[in-house]
């Protein structure tokens, strides 16, 4: 495709958006119950979980990627286990692996805002709902979810954006197979390596604008509704 007078292969962009979408959806499904459990805990287990969840924030992505590579290797236990259910192919150097890696990498960006949102809901509202004959699941969907809307919005936006911006983990887990696992950040790296600065400029500018817009959205939500991030 021609963009600003240069030939640009947009395949990595579409792949990035696809992986980011899957990651976001999966993280919303996993992160919500996890954040809810953590918000309700008041023991040392909570501290332990908080630290575990926050690990990807401080670990070099290559470390996380390295471990994932080991665990997901084609002869490893996870792959073997999945084979029992008819899984074919492999986890590493595939789109599935990319998504799994991204889920771990972006976990804190889903769990933290959700947990803060859940914690700020007064427990007496849930008590009140219980006295109005709502069971636990009912209370969650009719009281907790509507009152945590902004937490969900922030969590979804941040996990999506953070996945778009990852590099180390995807390089370790996914490698750099064109059309298969090459994401935008790696593509830019490649262009720079081969001194194709024009392409690198265009893709970088796109990423810059995208990231800025996302942060602008999050912080304006923050300002208007007092959503806590991080």
């Amino acid at each position: 495709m021609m963009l600003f007078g240069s030939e640009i292969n947009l395949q990595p962009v579409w792949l990035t958006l696809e992986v980011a979408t899957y990651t976001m959806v999966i993280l919303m499904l996993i992160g919500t119950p996890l954040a809810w459990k953590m918000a309700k805990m008041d023991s040392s287990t909570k501290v332990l979980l908080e630290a575990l969840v926050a690990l990807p924030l401080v670990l070099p992505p290559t470390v996380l990627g390295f471990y994932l590579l080991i665990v997901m290797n084609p002869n490893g236990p996870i792959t073997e286990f999945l084979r029992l259910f008819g899984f074919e192919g492999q986890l590493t150097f595939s789109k599935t692996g990319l998504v799994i890696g991204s889920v771990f990498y972006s976990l804190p960006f889903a769990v933290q805002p959700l947990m803060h949102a859940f914690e700020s809901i007064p427990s007496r509202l849930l008590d009140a709902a219980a006295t109005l004959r709502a069971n636990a699941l009912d209370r969650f969907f009719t009281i907790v979810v509507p009152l945590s809307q902004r937490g969900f919005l922030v969590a979804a936006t941040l996990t999506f954006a953070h996945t778009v911006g990852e590099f180390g983990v995807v390089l370790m887990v996914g490698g750099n197979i064109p059309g298969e696992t090459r994401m935008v950040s790696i593509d830019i790296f490649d262009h720079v390596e081969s001194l194709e600065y024009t392409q690198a400029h265009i893709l970088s500018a796109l990423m810059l604008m995208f990231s800025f817009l996302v942060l602008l959205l999050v912080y304006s939500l923050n300002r208007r509704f007092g959503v806590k991030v991080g």
Partner: protein
Amino acid sequence: MTALHLRGNLQLKRGQFELNTGAFDIPLVGITVLFGRSGSGKSSLLRAMSGLDQHTRGQLQMNQQIWQKGAKSLATSKRDIGFVFQDAALFPHMTVRQNLRYGVKRLPNQLVKGHFNETVDQVGVANLLDRSVETLSGGEKQRVAIARALLMQPKLLMMDEPLSALDWRAKAEILTLIESVVKVTQIPVLYITHAPAEVERLADRIIFMDQGRIDRIETLKQALSNPDSPLFDDQGVVSVLEGQLGSSENGLQRLQLGTQTLWISPLQTLPKQTVRIRVLARDVSLALSDPTDLSIVNHLEVTIAELIPQPDFRVLVRLNLPCGQFLFAEVTEHSAKRLKLCPGLRVFALIKSVVLAE
């Protein structure tokens, strides 16, 4: 119809605090007040009884229905109770109508759901239905909370200090509302407060809580006739008299106690006939004859029933009124001797001020 009984023995441990009620049997008729200092376990007990705290242990049953047995507990949503929280606990993301409908929608089918409009009118929230919860005043919020609890058609209504967040005007309104609701619906109420005035105004029975235990359960009458009652810890001994409101004259309103008349500040706002008033024992003086040259308006002819010595050279005098009620007066030991007060003596009680039980 047999009266409801709540029987059991509940334990609940939360951090430093330990609730251990001891065996109890509470007849649920009219308003039963849970009374005690803050930290005495009133709220914990109500949470344990309602099933809201999952750490509750022990036994609890409402007539034949078992609510708690060991660690097993019947879900709050299945206990047929209504609960009014201290600060109303309305759902902020819903309108008043949605708040009210929330519970109604979840009622089992066999319960008739037809009382929405009646309840809404009775509690006085009909004009608030489409308002957002956040625009309501404290009193309005508590009205909505009461309506929301009533719409559950509860067998038992639990109220956890429903007045504590309100100013005095709203307090008076909500108290009147609670009284009328109980009268009309005949739903028994468990009501938490630490304000003696609320107890004296509302209670039929009182559960005294102390350090996580149920100390004793008494009728209001029993509690008020005991000068050592915890009810009197703050303001000294109080007498509560029940009388019929009459006409007003010269800026004062008649309150009929049998054949005797008390004059009190007029009460325009109260539509009802029978009211309870509270009189502090230290606001009652005694005279051997009826003094006429005195600014105090209320003189009641009474008979001394007993003299109860108090600390600090004081004597508490229990006085019988002709209507069968009694009144406490507090005098000094010196005066008691000088006037030769003794049981059986007819004296005049001079009442400096009378306050409507709040």
